């Protein structure tokens, strides 16, 4: 394959770069200073052939900083002569287009179809030989270089196989290796597994021991229980002998006394001193009988009081309300009597005042007046009519007077003159007084003026009325009308008084005094009537009271005076007497009741005393077969025995607070038939055994505690399942470690085998070709290259006609020679990689820097020779080399 033209729209530092329309030859010298873009140019070639990587413009290292797309294209001529045109762009996504002699193909980001025999990584690492790479030869061992050149075919991204295998074998060896030297983790875990097996056996043993100890503890517990029981038994025997026996003897004595006392029920009801009690009982009976006799005499007086309260008294008391009411009414009637007298006196007084008034007004005496008619007189209306009559008469009389006055008007001129004089004189006195500062004159003047003005006014009024009256008279009506109204008013008065026998002169000229007199007469007559009615009412009530008192007296059987007052007093007295009698009777009854209660109580007491006496005597007789005296003696003996038994028991309780427990214990011991009769030897023997038992119990207790501690300790130890869990975990770890180790071994074997296979397939051809290149470069000094065997132990060796023995390439070899060997091998690898297939371009970057002149010349010759079959891009900053190569057909491309 030959790249005939390269054009970069934008790719890193190469913008609008174009190698030109003339097809590039097999040898292209890229000329430019350091960092001019030679590496970028190589990336352009890689991208054209294999596509973009990375595929995102955002992270592509050669994306234009201006934000535009990456745009590259190239014209290619394949080894078979086909002309291809490839155009690739990268913006959001990679795009590729291939024109194969007119056949269009969408490449997307795929490699060109003709170059798939060489991986992109291999092309990147193998088809570019740089100065930096040559410089690295100084620092690497040739074993590593050999691995990289032969095993990795020059690729620079691989760890040397020898190193990888050594690392794996080292790792595997750290886990396990056949010999026991050094630390081996698997053997360590193996040892732990063995140790765990031992621990498992320990756990099994512990489990057995645990079971044995638990069983032993159970046996010890049983023994302990038995020993305690035995000790208790012996302790009780000793206790019986030492402590219980005295108490038991004491109790026996008590029991004997109780036996002498006989059955307690025989003495039930007997006092502690029956003789004294017998005498006391007899005295008590006699005293009660005497009290009852006295009581009978005491009942006579109160019984008399009760009997005195008879039927009459009971009746009065039973009708207490009626009697009280009548007595109260009679008492009240005494006041009515007094009021009756007062009313009669008032009637006489009123009559005395009414009679002259009646004579004045009426034609009949007062006693004959019809009170109802008089009361029916409308006195207020009468008074109004009389006043109206008065006014009518005055009006008539006034009119008649004015008519008379008009006749006197002629005499008024004289009066007028007097007025004028009075005025002038008065005014003169006022002026004079004011002028002379004499108040008296001023006052006198003013009075004179006032008098003159008054006379003048009267004169004017008289003159005016006189004219009007005179006018009326001349007209002939007013005076007659007044008379007519006067007559009507009088008629109205007479009409009102028509029912009363009034004097005629009063009816003809009634005055307001008449009205007043009639009102007074009317009032007096009303008062008289009211008082008479009160008198009648009082007398009626007196009569009714007298009737009621008589009836009540009849019912009670009491004779009463006829008058109400006397009857009331008699009834009141009878009621008091009845109440007194009742109270006395009640007191008597109370006394009788009290006496009866005492009699009953004393009777009962007497009965009780007699019964007790009888019972006591009966009990005593019972003790002796009927003889009271003998029974009394027997009772006293028995009671004494019981008392002494009780005292003895009390003393026992005082000295032995736990007596009840002791007695229970004694009873149990007696019931169980325990021995009470240990002699001194037996006592000593029992005490010794008790001590031995106590010691044994202590020992057993300690042993049991020790066993329990031992069991607890064992239970804290890991159990079999726990140890097995560790064992399983160890086994799993062991399996995992073995697998890990085997995996590393397997991996190392695979790598070795891959290396061997690869070398077998590729190494001979590579070395042969490399030998040819090396012979050309060195001018025949070295004609063959060998080494790099599959065992990875051998290093490269040089063979030449002048060398007696092959010369090993290592760090002692000169730098130039090592670089020439390296270049020869790389050229051979490239030839090998695309042998019989499309030959891809080669990029050489400053590879001749360290070479001597002769070998550099031959090197350049070699490049020219290689370029005949494979396009070579030689990058250099040495213009002279470029110029030289140009003369040998190379195209110079300046960056």
């Amino acid at each position: 394959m030959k790249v005939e033209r390269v054009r970069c729209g934008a790719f890193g530092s190469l913008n609008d770069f174009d190698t030109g329309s003339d097809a590039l030859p097999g040898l292209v010298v890229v000329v430019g200073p350091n960092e001019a873009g030679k590496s970028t140019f190589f990336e352009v070639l890689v991208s054209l052939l294999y596509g973009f990587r990375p595929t995102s413009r955002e992270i592509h290292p050669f994306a234009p900083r201006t934000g535009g797309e990456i745009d590259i294209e190239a014209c290619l001529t394949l080894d078979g002569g086909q002309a291809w045109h490839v155009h690739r762009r990268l913006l959001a996504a990679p795009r590729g287009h291939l024109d194969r002699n007119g056949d269009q193909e969408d490449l997307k980001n795929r490699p060109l179809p003709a170059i798939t025999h060489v991986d992109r990584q291999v092309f990147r690492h193998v088809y570019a030989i740089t100065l930096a790479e040559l410089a690295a030869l100084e620092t690497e061992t040739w074993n590593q270089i050999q691995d990289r050149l032969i095993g990795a075919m020059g690729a620079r991204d691989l760890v040397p196989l020898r190193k990888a295998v050594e690392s794996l074998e080292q790792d595997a060896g750290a886990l396990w290796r056949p010999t026991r030297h050094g630390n081996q983790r698997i053997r360590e875990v193996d040892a732990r597994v063995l140790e765990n097996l031992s621990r498992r056996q320990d756990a099994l043993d512990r489990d057995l021991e645990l079971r044995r100890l638990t069983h032993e503890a159970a046996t010890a517990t049983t023994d302990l229980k038995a020993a305690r029981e035995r000790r208790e038994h012996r302790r009780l025997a000793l206790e019986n002998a030492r402590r219980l026996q005295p108490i038991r003897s004491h109790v026996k004595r008590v029991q004997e006394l109780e036996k002498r006392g006989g059955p307690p029920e025989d003495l039930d009801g007997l006092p502690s001193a029956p003789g004294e009690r017998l005498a006391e009982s007899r005295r008590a009976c006699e005293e009660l009988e005497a009290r009852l006799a006295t009581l009978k005499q005491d009942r006579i007086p109160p019984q008399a009081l009760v009997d005195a309260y008879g039927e009459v008294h009971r009746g009065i008391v039973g009708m207490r309300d009626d009697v009280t009411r009548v007595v109260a009414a009679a008492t009240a009637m005494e006041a009515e009597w007094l009021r009756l007298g007062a009313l009669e006196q008032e009637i006489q007084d009123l009559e005395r005042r009414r009679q002259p008034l009646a004579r004045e007004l009426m034609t009949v005496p007062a006693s004959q007046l019809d009170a109802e008619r008089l009361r029916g007189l409308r006195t207020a209306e009468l008074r109004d009519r009389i006043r109206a009559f008065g006014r009518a008469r005055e009006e008539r009389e006034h009119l008649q007077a004015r008519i008379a006055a008009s006749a006197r008007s002629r005499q008024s001129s004289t009066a007028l003159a007097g007025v004028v004089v009075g005025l002038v004189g008065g005014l003169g006195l006022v002026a004079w007084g004011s002028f002379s500062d004499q108040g008296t004159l001023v006052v006198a003047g003013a009075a004179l003026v006032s008098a003159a003005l008054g006379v003048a006014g009267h004169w004017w009024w008289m003159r005016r009325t006189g004219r009007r009256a005179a006018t009326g008279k001349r007209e002939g009506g007013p005076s007659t009308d007044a008379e007519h109204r006067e007559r009507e008013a009088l008629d109205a008065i007479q009409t009102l008084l028509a029912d009363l026998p009034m004097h005629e002169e009063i009816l003809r000229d009634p005055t307001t005094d008449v009205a007043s007199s009639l009102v007074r007469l009317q009032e007096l007559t009303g008062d008289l009537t009211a008082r008479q009615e009160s008198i009648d009412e009082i007398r009626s009530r007196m009569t009714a009271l007298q009737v009621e008192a008589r009836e009540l007296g009849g019912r009670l059987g009491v004779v009463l005076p006829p008058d109400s007052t006397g009857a009331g007093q008699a009834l009141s007295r009878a009621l008091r007497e009845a109440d007194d009698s009742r109270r006395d009777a009640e007191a008597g009854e109370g006394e009788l009741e009290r006496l009866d209660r005492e009699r009953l109580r004393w009777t009962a007491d007497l009965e009780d005393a007699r019964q007790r006496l009888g019972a006591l005597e009966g009990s005593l007789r019972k003790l002796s077969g009927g003889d009271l005296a003998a029974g009394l003696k027997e009772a006293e003996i028995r009671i004494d025995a019981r008392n002494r038994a009780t005292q003895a028991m009390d003393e026992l309780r005082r000295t032995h607070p736990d007596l009840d427990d002791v007695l229970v214990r004694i009873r149990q011991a007696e019931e169980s038939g325990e021995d009470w009769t240990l002699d001194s030897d037996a006592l000593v023997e029992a005490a010794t055994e008790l001590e031995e038992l106590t010691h044994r119990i202590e020992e057993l207790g300690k042993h049991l505690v020790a066993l329990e501690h031992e069991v607890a300790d064992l239970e804290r130890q890991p159990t079999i399942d726990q140890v097995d869990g560790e064992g399983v975990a160890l086994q799993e770890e062991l399996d995992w470690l073995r697998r890990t180790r085997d995996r590393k071994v397997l991996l190392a074997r695979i790598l070795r085998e891959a290396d061997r296979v690869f070398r077998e397939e590729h190494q001979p051809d590579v070395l042969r070709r490399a030998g040819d290149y090396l012979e050309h470069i060195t001018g025949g000094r070295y004609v063959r290259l060998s080494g790099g065997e599959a065992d990875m132990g051998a290093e490269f060796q040089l063979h030449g006609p002048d060398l007696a023995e092959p010369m090993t390439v290592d760090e002692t070899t000169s730098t130039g020679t090592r670089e020439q060997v390296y270049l020869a091998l790389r050229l051979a690898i490239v030839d090998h990689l695309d042998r019989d297939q499309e030959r891809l371009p080669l990029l050489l970057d400053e590879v001749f820097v360290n070479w001597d002149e002769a070998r550099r010349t031959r090197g350049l010759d070699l490049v020219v020779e290689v370029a005949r079959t494979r396009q070579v891009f030689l990058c250099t900053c040495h213009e002279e080399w470029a110029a030289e190569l140009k003369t040998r057909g190379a195209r110079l491309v300046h960056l």
Partner: protein
Amino acid sequence: MRILHTADVHLDAAFTSHSDALRRKLRDASRTAFTRLVDHALSESVDALVIAGDLFDGDRLSFQTERMLLGELGRLTAAGIPVVYATGNHDPGRTGRRAMELRWPDGVHVARDREPVTLPVQNAAGDEIGHIVAVGHGGPRESDDLSMLFPTPTGETPRVATLHTQVNDAGGWQEHDAYAPSQLKSLKTAGYDYWALGHVHRRQKLSSTPSIHYPGNLQGRNPSESGAKGALLADVRRGAAAAVRFVSLAPIRWEDLPVPKLREAATLDDLVHQVLDAWEAAREDDGGDPGTGWIVRVDLRGATPLWQELRREENQEHLRSELEMLLRVLHVSLRVGEVHRPVDLAEHLLRTDVLGEALRLAQSIRESPGRELPFEPGELIGIGNSDTPEDYVRDLLDGIEEEILARMLEGPGQNQ
């Protein structure tokens, strides 16, 4: 008839852990679960406790566990609740010492072998309310279908069959040895109303009518036995589906926690947050009982930028202890080993160099069973753990391409 159905208690099972404290907690949890089982039987006043085999994990029954077991069963029988126990492959009735030698309390009925044991169940009034039939394993490798030995049931009261068996088609049956294998069809047609089964540790219902249930084991023993563990409370009726309710009893639960986005974790802190997210997501669906102790295994595998950090033991321990603190659990374990850096395997397979050759060779060995191995199998010290050397080598080759790349490609930590 109400029964409490349990199985696979595996008392004194060896819990795998290097931590003695953790092993002790798990052992105690197993005992606590059994005590809770008895408590529940008493509180629910069940008519019988049914144990469908593998009560013990083996003959290594410790004295303490034995004392606990007999004490707890004694509580039941003292309350008048009978116990029916069918032996399993872990506790065979004729060769296993424990099932044979223990002094069972009166009221514990043990089916030691193929001879069916029938227990008429009575209520407090003495009326018969059902029958429980059990068949046990005489030896540890029972290969016959023991379900065929059950008598044909008669009568009108409910019938319960108890058996430790591997029912084909049961979920997870591949995880267990096929002892006493049986067919679901034959169980269904046997005429029993409830099959109380044991052996498969995953709780599951095989049939509703008749009711056929595995209760799962009582306490999970390892990360693969995750989820709530306990027993089944079943009200069994004649000719009808039983009302079955799961009762959670295990005080400790296991949780296997994968981290699906390991590739996206750029730092160990990111990884911690991913694990916390995964934990919270798991607890949203299944929060567990209050007071449950959790043992969590975090599974870290595949490509990750942290592949180097995760291979360092000190980082693993730091990560583990931090997660233990943040998750507030009893224990966290990390399963690291299959982590590698993110690489494009397909690209490197095409290389014309020793790397490409090694990758292709590894693939060839794994995918060509008859291929001659490039080494002597005797060099591999763990080869005895597999049935055949080829199986072992194939197992070793699982994911080895990534390790080849990790070893061969230049970059940080190339020698890891």
